[in-house]
């Protein structure tokens, strides 16, 4: 019996809209992408040639990192030791302005994922890619996929058009709860706003760094808007968010809530307690100092061993070597994050295909 080790965040790549997705588009959109030459729609957040987007040894000779099934299988399963992996496709379908185009492309991505990835390797699962530009269309796509248990979560970008806790998105949260699909919030921007709340940074590094602020804003929005009270079964997974900022965030959220909870009387518990019950985090990157005591302190301060999920972020270049598990994690955390926590977080994920 092989060891169960569920990689909760890997990134197969769409080769192109006019190539990879063409067979999965209806006639109207086939004609549009061909006649309008719509092809590469990669997110500005992850240009395929950028080093972070693909570790050198995980880049195919041609094409984007993550675009080749065989290579992903060798990397995620053979090299990094996963027994199962959840595919999170990051593509411009999530960012285009036209909601109908977004809907058509998201549907095509999900169909492509089911046909060319999930059906070819029973170890793979996937997040549903949704056109969050139009919540009712996103719900339609969720409903369309809900019958396929290989889809185990709903993928959204950390920086979209509006904070995710707003009532505008409640139909999506409701569908997520109904079908036991956690909302996977992944790093990445639809570039509706500057990545920093103060405006545009000068450097790529700043953009990637301030993604953590977007995650914090999303988390606070979901808590303060009352999403977890309204949808008590809702789970949220922060993906590629970094983890070590959580303790300070939890303390500050608690402190502030004590003084201003009359603004949001539906938030009946301390935010940190809500986070421990409803929020999970993938463990690449972890962003901790390189000593065991500090790592243990951060884990203790977060205060729950259920929140951590094993992830490699393959093929993104977060670490070198063959071991995606951040150094110095206590053994009991490593045990739980590989199987028990992912199975609890993604209840649709059954190990036997």
């Amino acid at each position, binding site marked *: 019996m092989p060891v169960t080790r569920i990689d909760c965040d890997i990134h197969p790549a769409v080769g192109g809209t006019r190539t990879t997705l063409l067979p999965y588009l209806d006639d109207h959109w086939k004609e549009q992408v061909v006649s309008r030459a719509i092809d590469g729609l990669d997110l500005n957040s992850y240009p395929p040639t950028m080093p972070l987007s693909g570790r050198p040894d995980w880049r195919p000779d041609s094409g984007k990192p993550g675009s080749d099934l065989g290579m992903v299988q060798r990397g995620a399963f053979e090299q990094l030791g996963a027994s199962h992996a959840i595919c999170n496709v990051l593509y411009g379908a999530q960012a285009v302005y036209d909601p109908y185009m977004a809907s058509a492309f998201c549907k095509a991505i999900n169909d492509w994922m089911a046909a060319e990835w999930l059906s070819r390797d029973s170890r793979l699962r996937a997040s549903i890619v949704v056109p969050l530009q139009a919540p009712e269309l996103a719900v339609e796509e969720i409903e369309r996929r809900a019958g396929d248990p290989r889809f185990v979560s709903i993928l959204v970008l950390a920086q979209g058009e509006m904070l995710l806790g707003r*009532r505008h998105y409640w139909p999506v949260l409701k569908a997520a709860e109904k079908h036991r699909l956690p909302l996977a919030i992944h790093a990445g921007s639809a570039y509706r706003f500057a990545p920093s709340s103060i405006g545009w940074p000068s450097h790529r590094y700043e953009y990637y760094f301030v993604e953590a602020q977007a995650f914090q804003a999303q988390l606070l929005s979901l808590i303060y*808007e*009352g999403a977890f*009270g*309204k949808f008590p079964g809702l789970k949220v997974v922060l993906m590629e968010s970094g983890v070590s900022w959580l303790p300070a965030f939890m303390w500050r959220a608690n402190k502030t*809530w*004590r*003084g*201003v*909870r*009359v603004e*949001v*009387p*539906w938030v*009946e518990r*301390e935010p940190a307690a809500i986070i421990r019950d409803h929020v999970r985090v993938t463990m690449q990157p972890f962003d901790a100092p390189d000593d065991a005591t500090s790592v243990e302190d951060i884990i203790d301060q977060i205060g729950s061993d259920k929140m951590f999920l094993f992830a490699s972020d393959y093929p993104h270049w977060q670490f070198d070597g063959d071991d995606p598990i951040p150094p110095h994690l206590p053994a009991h955390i490593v045990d739980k994050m590989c199987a028990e926590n992912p199975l609890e977080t993604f209840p649709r994920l059954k190990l036997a295909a």
Partner: protein
Amino acid sequence: MARHIVARTTEIPDGRNKVVEIDGRDIVVFHVNGAFFALLNRCPHEGAPLDKAACVARLTSPEPGVYQRSRVGELLRCPWHGWEFDMRNGQSWFDPKRVKVRSYPVAVESGEELAKGPYVAETFPVHVEDSYVIVEA
């Protein structure tokens, strides 16, 4: 613990409070919804004077956007950081078991009964025709 006569009832109209010193402690006596409550005049957080607190409703909510008010005026909102305390027992809203203001039993008695003693009321001439607020502290 001794019983202290701290005010004539007419001195503290409904909705108001009075700070009294008992054995070196500042104690604030509130009159709200026809009842009197006495608390240490010091927020357990950082010591703010609670006589300056806003007296607000107990606010709960079954779901976002729905505001349920009860016991109007019986919750204190500390003037410094907004922590809420229940006037009746000093318990904080966010952690009622562990974070609370010291509270003291209060009684209202007539001057006629008070004449029988014993009370600590050095500063209070007691008249049989009035009623008085008694704090046990």
